[in-house]
């Protein structure tokens, strides 16, 4: 990644790892996320916090091109998604996957290596070794051959984390990795995320639990259909900001969104 080391044209500040510029996202015609400007400069544990339906997952999906942008741009270390894909590891929400699917934990982790293999090359010994190492890092080496649906919720989430590890990415985007996960798995997941940060990776986590957010994340963004505040956890998680995020002030945004979707007008 030579780009990340290049100073930007506008000054001597390094190019940010992730930059959302005026990002607006819609499902169909209905905008669900309005004009987000968010810059993450340096490797850290970054939490995206907000109420249900605030558009937290949507923000990640927009960054990954899984939902189209209505407006704005997302750049990774100064380059667009198409050139940065192989540097990003993604852990989707648990609900997006069919857990009865006939794959073993090992098969799922191996999928993390498919991106760098290209379309037609089959995984070889190097990829298998990488998948085994990643499973061991999340403490699941002994259930490698188990069908994914036969693992506990916490183990399933750790398998997905291992898949992201096998990707050997520079930026990790995780969508609610702590949802439906027992306390022990939460600790283990957090330990792995902290070790990623220690090795200079950026870890962005969509998270719903305010209590743990304060102790886990270096920096957070508060989101409720728009960006409320972003920055160091201690300065962002203030009573005032939390009230602005959780008090449903966005009723107007919702109404306008619906009006846009229905080609109508708000009352």
């Amino acid at each position, binding site marked *: 990644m030579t780009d990340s080391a290049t100073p930007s044209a506008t000054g001597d500040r390094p190019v940010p790892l992730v930059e959302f510029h005026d990002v607006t996202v819609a499902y169909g015609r209905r905008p669900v996320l309005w004009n987000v400007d968010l810059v993450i400069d340096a490797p850290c544990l970054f939490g995206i916090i907000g109420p249900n339906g605030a558009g937290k997952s949507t923000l990640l*999906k927009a960054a*990954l*091109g*899984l939902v189209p942008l209505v407006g704005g741009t997302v750049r990774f270390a100064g380059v667009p998604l198409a050139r940065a*894909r*192989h540097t*990003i590891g*993604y*852990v*989707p929400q648990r609900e*997006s*996957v*069919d857990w009865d*699917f*006939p*794959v*073993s934990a090992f*098969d*799922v982790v191996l*999928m*993390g290596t*498919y*991106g760098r*293999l290209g*379309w*037609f*090359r*089959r*995984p070889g010994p190097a990829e298998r070794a990488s998948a085994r190492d990643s499973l061991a890092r999340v403490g699941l080496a002994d259930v490698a051959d188990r*069908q994914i649906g036969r693992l506990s919720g916490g183990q399933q989430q750790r398998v997905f984390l291992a*898949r992201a590890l096998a*990707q050997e990415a520079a930026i990790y985007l995780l969508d609610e990795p702590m949802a439906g996960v027992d306390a022990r798995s939460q600790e283990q997941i957090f330990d792995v995320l902290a070790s990623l940060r220690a090795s200079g990776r950026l870890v962005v986590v969509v998270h719903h639990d305010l209590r743990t957010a304060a102790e886990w994340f270096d920096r957070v963004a508060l989101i409720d259909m728009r960006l409320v505040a972003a920055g160091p956890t201690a300065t962002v998680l203030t009573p005032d900001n939390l009230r602005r995020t959780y008090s449903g002030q966005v009723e107007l945004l919702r109404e306008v969104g619906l009006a846009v979707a229905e080609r109508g007008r708000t009352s």
Partner: protein
Amino acid sequence: MMAGTAGGMHLWAIATASVVAAACALVGTLLVVRRQSLLGDAIGHAVLPGIALAVLAGARPGGVAVFGAAVACALVTVGLVQVLRAVAGLAEDAGAGVVFTSLFAAGVVIVTLGASRIDLDASCVLYGILEMVPFDTVPVGGVEVPRGFVSSAAVLAALVAVAVPTWKLQVFSAFDPDGARAAGVPVAAVTTGLLAATAVATVAGFEVVGAVLVVALLVVPAAAAELLVHRLHRVALLAVAFAVGGAIVGYLLAYRWNTSAGGVIAVVLVAQYVVAALLAPEDGCVAQVAGRVRFAWRVAREDRLAAVWRAMEQRGTPAGPRSALEHLAGWWLRVRGRIVGAASLSAAGRREAEMVVRSHRLWEAWLGRHADLPLDHLHPPAEWVEHHLGEAARRRIEAELEHGRGDPHGREIPPEA
């Protein structure tokens, strides 16, 4: 021209059926694990107008043009379903139902109208003409080989040639489409490829089992295999084995009974599925029933031993068995020497009984402490939890209880064996 002797003809028919079955099972596995089995049904029917029009336009049945027309029809089907959903808000399954029946109906009309001009009749489309396959041959390297075998072998070879290098993309896209897209997998192209492959395999299946039963080849072997193995490549290999086995056995039985080969092949496939559903080692009916019976038997034995142990503790007579099974368990425990005389236990019986009573009283004590329940609410839950607590859990509960060894009723909790 005919392909050799009567025996040789049967071999060619069986070979053709096997090749087609393998191709359909391979594609069908991917449809089944995507929970899109009925898409195979839809495509199987929707390709008919394409085939009919291609043949009317002068294409040779089983030729490349026919396969091309079928693939086009399959993609049109899927496209129309999406259009119906976007424009009319029709759910995907209902949309598929509308589209494939319309196209199939159009196909039937075209076939019947053009019956005088084309070598394709409605009944052979519906039921297949496996028995006729050996009568239409082409020379391959000096040997007369059935045309149907040549085209379906080409289909199978092409499908395998594509499936092997792109298998990982199919697995990733089917299991986790969002994750695959995020990793740069062209999920839409992978899905379109699968639909095209389904169309090709379906057309190959037409000749053997017909449009209706080709769905059996697509879905049933994969559904059976999925019950038995839990990794996708194994599911695919086992499904192919089931399909080929079903084709061979079905053909032979049909010959013996002098009936439709396509029909009997489908029946054999379903029979395989039923056997798999009954005997699957983990989720099969037999395994599940056996598991329940084993558990009920253990509960009955443990209840009987605990009843005798409690009688010994209170120097009374044991409570009578509460079920026929517990009665049987009491008799069995006497035969095995665990229960001795009217109300006495062997050393082994005593140990076993103590662990049940220990689990029971620990659970009552734990509930009494944590759930704040009145005394009379403690016994019923302990009555079933006592059969589920292991040694580690018992020790954990014991460590948590500070006060002495007594349960909430003031009785002693036996120590760990």
